[in-house]
């Protein structure tokens, strides 16, 4: 005879919710890589597809939010379950915003479509790869409630920031030497900024993982040294 587990339904609901969150995460990874690739290849069709794909991400986010609220209402979670569900709401919001950043990159591709390229785009795809890789690992750590891994991932944010600064420097040089590039260089700075913000939001997800695991709410990205330079 099968033994009845008191949490069978609840545990299944939590597992399904985590699966849905991973799906949303992979959608965000996809739209980010697609949008940056479209920008690199100046492929307006691909950019348009990425732009429209953001709507699917928004829908998925509402679906997760709704499932989460239903579980809270019906299971009345406590302790780690409660921290997990509250954090899923937060993480879904972060992912949705990341989707918006990617959509922003797709939009930049469409805005620049008639203008000649300033230079081959090489650093932005590297940034996108780094950011999406961070996101992938951060969501893995989140569903596994692995606080140690989460704390480690945030250290990679420095590499993204480094690339962002480098892109800025290069584009600034273009703008100074040839003011006719200002428009296009600005667009690319904007795209780089979106990817940099995306990596910052991965840090927020890692903070949530630590909260679920330990109950401690702490900021991981305390850039004191950045402030000291100001």
């Amino acid at each position, binding site marked *: 005879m099968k033994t009845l587990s008191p949490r069978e339904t609840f545990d299944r609901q939590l597992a399904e919710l985590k699966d849905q969150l991973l799906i949303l995460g992979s959608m965000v990874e996809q739209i980010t890589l697609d949008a940056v690739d479209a920008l690199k290849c100046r492929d307006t069709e691909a950019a348009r597809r990425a732009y429209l794909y953001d709507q699917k991400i928004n829908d998925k986010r509402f679906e997760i939010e709704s499932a989460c609220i239903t579980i809270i209402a019906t299971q009345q979670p*406590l*302790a*780690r379950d*409660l921290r997990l569900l509250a954090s899923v709401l937060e993480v879904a919001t972060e992912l949705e915003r990341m989707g918006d950043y990617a959509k922003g990159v797709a939009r930049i591709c469409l805005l620049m479509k008639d203008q000649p390229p300033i230079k081959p785009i090489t650093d932005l795809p590297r940034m996108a790869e780094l950011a999406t890789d961070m996101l992938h690992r951060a969501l893995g750590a989140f569903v596994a409630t692995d606080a140690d891994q989460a704390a480690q991932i945030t250290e990679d944010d420095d590499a993204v920031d480094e690339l962002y600064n480098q892109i800025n420097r290069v584009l600034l040089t273009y703008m100074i030497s040839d003011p006719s590039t200002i428009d296009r260089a600005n667009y690319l700075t904007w795209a780089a900024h979106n990817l940099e913000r995306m990596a910052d939001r991965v840090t927020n997800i890692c903070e949530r993982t630590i909260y679920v695991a330990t*109950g401690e709410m702490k900021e991981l990205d305390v850039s004191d040294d950045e402030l000291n330079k100001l």
Partner: protein
Amino acid sequence: MSQTNNNHAIEARNLNIYYGDFLAVRDVNLKIKQRKITAIIGPSGCGKSTMLRAFNRMNELVPTAHTEGEVLYHGKNIYASEVDPVEVRCRIGMVFQKPNPFPKSIYENVAWGARINGYQGNIDELVEQSLRASALWNEVKDKLGQSGLSLSGGQQQRLCIARTIAVKPDIILMDEPASALDPIATLKIEELMREISKDYTIIVVTHNMQQAARVSDFTAFFNLGEDRAGVLEEYDKTKNLFTNPAKQTTEDYISGRFG
């Protein structure tokens, strides 16, 4: 009696409670904060109600029960030989799971305890005060002569709370006070507990985790030890215990993994 200066209404010290040879509650140390609501939770058979009854010597009504250790009330051990258990139960009242009004009028239900304790003041005033304090006055003021048993379950329970309040206790013990009531009557009892905790210290045993989370300031989690004796596993502010308990067993219990 003098007030304790450390904000604790009552304190169990190295308390062991036996039923015959069976150790039901082992070595409990627990300080209950004054004018706060403390919930006692835990799986069936972990000694929650036994612990609650130890606070006003109700276990003595069970012939085989005996208690070791101390329960300090205003610095004095209520189990000391010179202490009269009836006096203890006047100061530390109790409300039970099933509403149990006397088969008498609403008025008499409230007046009874005060009268047999030789209350010298105005009994009419005491009855009104107590019924107001238990949020029942408006519902019964025009029918004080009717039987207490004519009231609904929720009203009966509030009548029992009024009866307890009427003897002017310091501490009110509640053993599953809402488990026999419907959800609305339950919420009313919980609101009432909040209201009267301004004047009284309340200790409540509940199976309903959400109720403990909703209504209490502090929560004591009791669990079964390896020898089947009840032990105090974790005691903390309710907010902490239900969002981030210190012990894995507490986490497992409140998350429904056992119990």
